[in-house]
Every structure is written in structure tokens, then in C-alpha cells.
């Protein structure tokens, strides 16, 4: 693989910087190791590129200590894209046959049509083979926060948007983990398959922040642009909820910005606007919020490659919420919900924003 000027430039910028973004990285904060800091990983990738360090499994594994959350980029004087560059470094390692983690760990089979939330949707007559308005949950939603899918269907039914249905495409994994892990050849095949499956839809409402980011920004790079209108569930619900009668939910509710939503999809305002419509009091802002949010560790395939580190990052977000005296933590990313629930345990209730909206509509506030 040839070295592109952008890749080289990004690596060089980091390598000669004294790691001023160190404090922003959730991974280096969790592991407390300099070699997993943005500087450490980028320098290492450059050393590999320059032939100063031999690429082996141990070295390549360090490249997987990145969430791709772009917190460091937010802080960088040069807006250096550390996450995408490290993901590119992973792909280069894979292309050279160095795969510290086997491919099988990043491949997720199609979700069964006969069990779990997809079967429930079928029972509720909200399943069509190829609907015009498709609800796409994403693999992480089906696995980690299946209740969110049921809540979305219930809520949209109440709001008179029954045209939004689950379809055959809803069972597919969009391939985020494959892409993030650097298995680009396999990811390209998945992307083409998902592109075909979504071809009949006019609008795709996406629950997973990772999936939406991938469909909007990465699929076109792999020659598989999605023709349908891609919207996040918070954007979709915002218009539906405008005239709805709700019983506002009480309590001290904090909002956690998903890094994909806030930084990569620039969706900071819609989730807050929705919460303001269904909450008695304004949502509590965490110390790190909006574009400066802290990643919960649930992305970048870190839960697969370094589960303990990933959990530590989630604990840090829970601590931020507890520090603000929150009784409940809400987020609009299903990856975050699954991750934060696991880290919070009994200390804090973690729910998806859709669940909260559903409660307000049903008068369970």
C-alpha cells in the first residue's frame, strides 16, 4: 500500500507534538499509559511506516487502542484527524497480514427474523420485507439495547407514524466493527450488500449513531452511497413530537452526548430539543458536553479488543453524571446505552432518549 500525503502529514504532525491533547483521550485516561496516548499511537504508526519499528501483533495491537471518538482532534491546534488515521493504520497492518485480533471477532451474522426485537416487530405488524420508511437499528442496538427498538415502534405508533417499519435490512449489520478494525475488503462486501438492501427505501431512520456515521460518511468512500434519506431517530422524532401531548418526566435527568452524534454528525441540538419537550426540568449538562463530550468507550471496536479499558471509559462518564447529582442518564446512541448500563450497575439508571419520550407520551412521567 502506498503512503498518501494526508496519512503521512497526520502522522508527522502528531509525532513532533509533545502530546498536548493527552488529557482528552479516554483510552489513555483509562489505561494510564503513555504508549496508548494519541501521540504514542500516532508516533508508533509513523515509526512503523518509516521502518523504525517492526510491525508485529504486539505493535499492531496498540493501534487498536483508539475509539475514534475524535476528542483529541477537537483539542488539536491543527485539527489533526487522529482517529481516522489510526483506523487507516489498522487497515495497513491488516493489508500486510498483521492481524492481532482475528477477523471472526468483527463479523456479526444477520439477526434472526424469528427471535428478539425483530420477531416482536413482526408480531406487532410493523414488519415489511422492503418498507419505504425503514427503521434500521444496527447490530449494537439489537444486541445491547433491544428495548430501544420496541420503544421506537411503540412511540411512532402513538405519534401516527406507523409507516415506519422494520424490514429485512434491519437484520443486517452495517459493518462498523469490520471497518474500524481495518478489514476493508470484507467491509466493502458488507457495504455493497447493505446498499442493495436499502435500495427500496425512501427514508432510513437509524437508531445506532455508529451506523448512521458509517452510512453517511464511510459508505460513499467505499463506492456504496445510500440513495435513501438517512436520518437519526432524534431528528425524525423532533418533528413528530412538536404537537404531541406529553406528561413531562420528572427528576434530575442528565444528557450524555455520543461522540459520533456530537462530533461526527454534529447532532448536538436535536436531542436536547427533544428532551426539553418531555422533561419537567431542563436536562442536566455533564461537565464535558456537546462537541467536548467524553466517549463512553463503546465504539472503535474497543469493546471487542480491550473490554476492560472500554468499561473504564464508561465508568468515567457515569462518574461525571453522578458528580452532577443525576438520577438518570439519557443518551441518544444505542451503543452508549449498552455500554453505560453495564458500567452503571445499580448506581444510575441509563435509558435511551426514545424510551424517555415514550414514557412521556404514555403518561408515565
Amino acid at each position, binding site marked *: 500500500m502506498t503512503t498518501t500525503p494526508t496519512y503521512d502529514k497526520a502522522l508527522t504532525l502528531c509525532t513532533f507534538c*509533545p502530546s498536548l491533547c493527552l488529557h482528552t483521550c479516554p483510552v489513555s485516561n483509562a489505561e494510564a499509559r*503513555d504508549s496508548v496516548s494519541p501521540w504514542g499511537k500516532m508516533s508508533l504508526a509513523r515509526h512503523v511506516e518509516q521502518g523504525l519499528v517492526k510491525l508485529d501483533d504486539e505493535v499492531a495491537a496498540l493501534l487498536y487502542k483508539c475509539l475514534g471518538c475524535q476528542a483529541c482532534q477537537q483539542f488539536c491546534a491543527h485539527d489533526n484527524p487522529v482517529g481516522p488515521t489510526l483506523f487507516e493504520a489498522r487497515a495497513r497492518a491488516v493489508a500486510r497480514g498483521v492481524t492481532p485480533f482475528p477477523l471472526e471477532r468483527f463479523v456479526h451474522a444477520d439477526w434472526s427474523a424469528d427471535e428478539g426485537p425483530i420477531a416482536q416487530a413482526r408480531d406487532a405488524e410493523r414488519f415489511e420485507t422492503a418498507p419505504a420508511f425503514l427503521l434500521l437499528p444496527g447490530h449494537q442496538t439489537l444486541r445491547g439495547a433491544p428495548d430501544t427498538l420496541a420503544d421506537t415502534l411503540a412511540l411512532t405508533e402513538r405519534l401516527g407514524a406507523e409507516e415506519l417499519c422494520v424490514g429485512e435490512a434491519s437484520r443486517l449489520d452495517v459493518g462498523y466493527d469490520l471497518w474500524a478494525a481495518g478489514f476493508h475488503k470484507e467491509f466493502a462486501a458488507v457495504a455493497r450488500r447493505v446498499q442493495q438492501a436499502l435500495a427500496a427505501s425512501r427514508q432510513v431512520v437509524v437508531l445506532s449513531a455508529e451506523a448512521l456515521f458509517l452510512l453517511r460518511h464511510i459508505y460513499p468512500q467505499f463506492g456504496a452511497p445510500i440513495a435513501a434519506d438517512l436520518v437519526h431517530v432524534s431528528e425524525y422524532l423532533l418533528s413528530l413530537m412538536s404537537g404531541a401531548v406529553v406528561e413531562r418526566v420528572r427528576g434530575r435527568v442528565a444528557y450524555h452526548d455520543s461522540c459520533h452524534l456530537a462530533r461526527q454528525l454534529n447532532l448536538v441540538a436535536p436531542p436536547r430539543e427533544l428532551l426539553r419537550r418531555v422533561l419537567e426540568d431542563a436536562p442536566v449538562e455533564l461537565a464535558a458536553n456537546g462537541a467536548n463530550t467524553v466517549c463512553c468507550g463503546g465504539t472503535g471496536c474497543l469493546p471487542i479488543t480491550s473490554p476492560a479499558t472500554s468499561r473504564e471509559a464508561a465508568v468515567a462518564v457515569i462518574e461525571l453524571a453522578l458528580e452532577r447529582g443525576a438520577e438518570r442518564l439519557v443518551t441518544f446512541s444505542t451503543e452508549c446505552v449498552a455500554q453505560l448500563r453495564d458500567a452503571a450497575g445499580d448506581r444510575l439508571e441509563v435509558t435511551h432518549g426514545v424510551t424517555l419520550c415514550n414514557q412521556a407520551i404514555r403518561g408515565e412521567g
Partner: protein
Amino acid sequence: MTTSIVRPVGYLDELRRIVPTEQIEPHATAEGARGGSWAVEPATQDELVDVLKWANERHAAVYTRHPRPGDAERCGARPRIYLRGRRMQRVGDVDIVSGTVTVQSGIAMKDLHDMLAERGFTTGFPTRPWRQESLGAVLAAALDSHWGPRYGAMEEQVVSLGVVFPDGTSARSRTAPRKAVGPDFDRLFLGSRGRFGIVYQATLRIYPSAQREVLSYGAPDLATALEAVRTSLEAGFEPRAIEIMTPAPDRSWGRKRVGLTDELPILVLVEPWGAEGGRPIAMVDQYFSSQLTRLEPPVGWDVHEGLLPPPRAWTAPVVGVRWSELMALARELGHDVPPGVWLVRLSRHGGFLSLASGIQGSPADRVRFLINQHLPTANGPWHVILKTLKDQLDPRGILNPD
């Protein structure tokens, strides 16, 4: 009248039990001094620990610098130990994968940089001004902004430290991001002038060797120089480093060499990011050339060394000053800018100002007045914190007593 002299022979014997005889050098003045004075060269961390434990038992004063004339008088009957680091120069590890080098603190900066240069690497510290000083001395010096790394601070270059406390206990900081572990252990010792502990080992970041490009300009007065810098920052240039300086009085040859004249007495140094980031070098040069006069110092000649006293001679305080104060100072000084003014790390907020020691005259007094205004007051919270720390870590006043 006769004076009774206590011969410190017993102390020397005790020291010989801790370190080999060849690592102890009695000072000539020891015979006449009441407590005795020795230069001691520990070769290992254990020896250093034992020396400090012995010092605690004997209430000795342990200095990490050369002897000074007033020491004997200050210490009275207390024995004095002057530690030398020349036997603690071992390189523990050069880890390119982690991007770090771990070395003992006695290594001279030149030796450290030469060793790294063989592998194509360097540290974040300037390679020239400190070359004869030991790493420990550099880390303990409170001159970070002026003689330290040109970009970022010393703290960013130091990944972890091994420290022996005044009571002889030791600790090693973990390689951890500041945010992850609460208060930064390393910061207690960096720039502390050896008041709280002795750094015996340090892990530093290393970088691939690369060439820096520094552009030099002359200005007729401080106001013009500051205005050019301020407008460049507002225009979004933000180079890696910007400095403004006037040569020290005894550096007339350097002044001539760099191209400064009576009409252009102020030097402005601008270091662009380079080809990889920030604005292109040609664009930065074009901008500053339109505001100031481009100078061409000889290639490879170190401007700082040629124009300013060396780091060890730079004992003047360094303070952070805001733009409004800098501009007011420049207006007041007009064309009478004193020699030895050094303003570094200019940013949107201001810069770090210092004036070389011994400069006389009313313009120098005006600069010194501004610097003194920013110095912490003798009974202010900063002094209270330092005193409390010193009392806690060194209750018997063993290490570098004032």
C-alpha cells in the same frame, strides 16, 4: 584568642561506609569549617538513599549544587554534602515503541542527545544551551519557559520521574496522563530547584530527529515588534514559537552577527510549524517581512547562545504578562529598550517576560518594575504552599537549605 575546631573525621568514616572512598572528595575548606564539607558521588539509587538517611541522622545539609561562599556560615556546625551526579549516567532504556528514554539524572544533556542522535532521535529539550549540564539540573531549573522546550512545557516532555525524598525514602511516578491520576507528582519536582527531592531517574519523550526552521526579523522598537506579532496572531498565523529579545550588553559581536543595528535593536524570532502543518513557511515569512526587516543570521549559529547569558547565569525571574501590559510597557519605553530583555512563548494571551541580571538604567528599572509586579508576594498563597510542602517533605531542612 584561640578557636576550637571540631574535626569531622568521624563523619568521613561514616560516609566511607556508605560510598567507596574514591566517590568522596573532602573540600579544602573542610579543615577550617566547623561541620566539614564533602563532595559525594553516589553511583546508585541505593547509595543516594543511604547518603540522605545518614544526613538525617547527622542533621547534615545536602546540596545538589556547587559550594558557595556563604554555605559554611549558614550551616554552622552542620556537616555539608555536595552531591555530584557524574556516576549516575546510565541509560536504562530507549523504547522506540513507547517513544521514551529512561536515564539516570546525572547524564549530561549533550551525552543524552548524542546517544539518541545515533538512533535518529532526540528529546523535546533544546540540544545546545544545556549541553554541559546534567539532566537532573535541567529538570530542577525554574527556567522552563526560557531555556526549556520551544513548544509545550517541560511537564509534557517528562513522562515519569524517580525521586529520593529528603528523608531517604524514594518514589517513582507512573507513566500516566495528568487527568487520570489527580495531582501531578512530577510537577512537584520539575523546576523546584531541588527543594523537595532529588530526581535520580527520568523517563522522557523522544522524537525522530528533524530540522527546525527559525525566521529572524529586526524591529526599530518594542511596540513595532509586538504589533507585528499581535496582528499575526489575530490573522491566525499562530506559529510554533515566537520570541522577542534584545542582546545582552556584552554580546556586541553577536548583535552584529545577527544583523541588529542601532536602528533595528529588537530581534523577533518566528518558528513556523514547518511543511507539515500550520501556514506555509513562505506565507509566514512574507507576512512578517512586510511588517519588520528580515535578518539573515549565519546558518547553524545559535542565536540564543550568541545574544544572551547562558542558562546557568540567567538567574532573573520569569513572569507571565498580558498583552495590554506588554503594549503599555512598549509605549513607555519607546526606542529606549534595555538590553537583555527576553520575551518568549508569545500567544494570544501574552508572553513570558524576563530581564537578564545586572542591567542598569531607567528603562531596565521600568521592565523590572513590571516583572516585580507579577512576582508572588512573600506572604502570598504560593509561598505558603511552597513552605508547607517543604516543611512536610523536609522538616529538618536537610535538602538545599536556604
